[in-house]
């Protein structure tokens, strides 16, 4: 993909904190206009990667480009950022806080204040325009900060764990805001370890674990890494049925579950029918992102089992 079609590109990003290599050669390419997720378990290096991309910290090695600029600072006014650790001045009013965050990114205060009112009303916080941040609940303050990161209508919006600490209603509001930003033409890059959000929102995603990128592609690509799963419920259950099923078959309260055999399900079904077990229910399901994530991250965990150093 041509570099001018990428909102973010990074190759071989490395970051060490002391002797510990927190990010170890991560590559990321985020096409413009997409919602891109960076997934990974706690401590995977997601936040450090985002901070390097934004220029908050300098990488020890590697190259990065943000909205066509070699140094992230040069694109500062076209970027919005919601950090993992939320931070606002408690004595500021909601409208002023949003306008201030916009002003840091080049929006004049008067326009910022005007837009802040509209944005607050859009997320149902119109009544909180003149409320001080210290009077708002944690979730409300988090929404205010998110509004502060989009008030200047950035081309790229970077959100670090945006859903953490939000109740389901506010999570839905936030999803709506993210989709609206994408529809406006912005590129969204967000990190999360909650698969449901990634599955619903991401056009593409990267999975980072142990400081390295382990996967890059669409949600479907990730799910396709695992074989299809079969869920079979026999009409007549008997003790000899296990011998006919694949080795990984596991019996649950609602039937048997196993990976679809490589030769397909037809031969298996024929054997089961011949043996007289019949079919009460049968479904072939594609595994979810959650399963793909667990498998990828689980492999990394095994690689980094005790006795093996990450340095």
């Amino acid at each position, binding site marked *: 993909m041509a570099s001018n079609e990428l909102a973010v590109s990074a190759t071989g990003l490395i970051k*060490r*904190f002391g002797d510990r290599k927190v990010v170890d050669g991560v590559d990321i390419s985020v096409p413009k206009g997409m919602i891109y997720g960076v997934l990974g378990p706690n401590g995977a290096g997601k936040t450090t990667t985002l*901070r390097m991309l*934004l*220029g*908050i*910290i*300098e*990488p*020890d*090695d590697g190259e990065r480009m943000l909205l066509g600029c070699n140094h992230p*600072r*040069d694109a*500062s*006014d076209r*970027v919005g*950022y919601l*950090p993992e*650790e*939320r*931070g*606002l*001045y*408690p*004595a*500021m009013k909601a409208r002023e806080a949003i306008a*201030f*965050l916009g*002003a*840091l*990114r*080049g929006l004049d205060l008067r326009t910022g204040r005007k837009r802040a009112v509209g944005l607050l009303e859009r997320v149902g916080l119109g009544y909180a325009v003149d409320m001080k941040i210290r009077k708002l609940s944690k979730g409300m303050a988090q929404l205010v*900060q998110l509004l*502060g990161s989009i008030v200047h209508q950035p081309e790229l919006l970077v959100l670090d764990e945006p859903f953490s600490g939000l109740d389901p209603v506010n999570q839905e509001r936030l999803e709506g805001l993210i989709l609206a930003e994408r529809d406006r033409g912005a590129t969204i890059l967000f990190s999360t370890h909650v698969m449901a959000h990634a599955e619903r929102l991401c056009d593409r995603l990267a999975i980072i674990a142990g400081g390295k990128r382990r996967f890059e592609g669409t949600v479907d690509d990730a799910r396709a890494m695992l074989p299809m799963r079969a869920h079979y419920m026999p009409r007549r259950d008997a003790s000899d049925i296990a011998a006919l099923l694949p080795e990984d078959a596991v019996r649950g309260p609602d039937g048997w579950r196993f990976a679809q055999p490589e030769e397909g399900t037809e031969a298996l079904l024929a054997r089961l029918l011949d043996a007289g077990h019949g079919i009460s229910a049968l479904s072939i399901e594609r595994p979810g992102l959650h399963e793909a994530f667990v498998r990828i991250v689980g492999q990394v965990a095994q690689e980094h089992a005790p006795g093996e150093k990450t340095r």
Partner: protein
Amino acid sequence: MTRLRRIVRQTLTIARRDFTATVFAPTFLLFLFAPLITLSFGAIGGVGASVASSSTDKSRIIAIVAPADAPGFARADDELRDIFRDGEQPPELRIDRPKADPARQAHATFAAKDVDARAALYGSLERPTILYDGTGTRSADYLAAVAERTLRDRAGSETSLSVPVKRSVQRTTGISSGGKHQAAFFGVFGIFLLTIILAGQTVGTMAEERSNKVIEVLAAAVPLESVFLGKLLGMLGMAIVFVVFWGTLVSNVGVLLPAEVGRALHEIGPAVGFPTYAVLFFVYFTMAYMLLGAVFLGVGAQASTMREIQMLSLPITIVEVAMFGLSSIGASSPDSWVATFAEIFPFSSPFAMAARAANSPEIWPHAAAIAWQLLWVTIVIFISARAFRRGVLQSGNARWFSRRKDVTQTD
């Protein structure tokens, strides 16, 4: 938008936020009027101490003279006492009538419990004997002078041996050499006082950002150098409000001063003239504030708790006092190597150059000094931001080294 314009805009955005957050907070009024509260307590304490002092001061000089000499002696004491300023006058005079043994009577006054005799005179006024204790030498001299005056008054009656004609003159040079030194000291002290009150405030300003986690948002949007400079300018704005408020108040107090004080102050003045000195004083206060404030801000930014910040207040005060001491020595001896060192050493330079403006009329050294001090403000902010980036944000500078390496390789 150019990078420089963006940096200026971001710096001013942060400065504006800090200024309004500080000045429009109710606690700022308390801060603004704190000196008034201190002065009020000081005044009340001073009056109390004065009253207590006058009521408890039992020092006396004793004159054991014949009743015939007593009125003349008392009159001579009144006349001579007028020469002394308040606070410098000899102890109060008590005239005793002589008893059978005046010598014993005089000695007995030093053992009396109701007064503390400093000196006692007895015998004839022509040949008086004066006793005095360890602290009464000057009191003894004074009693001798009163006796002399009494006799002269008695002998010459109406005619004085010397009849002076007193005329007030205006000094042609306007300001005396001592007046310049005094102006230099006042300048150094004024900047020191304002700096010690105001610059220490910067030490905790980054703590707010760190505790609120706002620093992450700022660091993502704005170069840390701009964050530091913006915070420094915001606090400087607050300091200027303080200085203007108190400056206006103090300058108007001059109208209320007695005429003699005004005349005495007329002799004190800077060599560069008052208008230029006022400008230089303001500039050097700004520079002292920026320099020391930047150091304190940088050091304070490394602290992660309020306890650590409080611990820093002592070394900060020591640094400020050291700079004041260095510059004061320079102010009192303008041509010494200490003065030159204080003028060159960046952190004492604003104080010492303010003293120089009072002692010496040349202007060009001030332009050079201001440029030198500005350079050091930049250096300190740069170092502070770098230390913060490394120590707090844990962002190394390997890229800087690799760039240098690349350049070397290209070459």
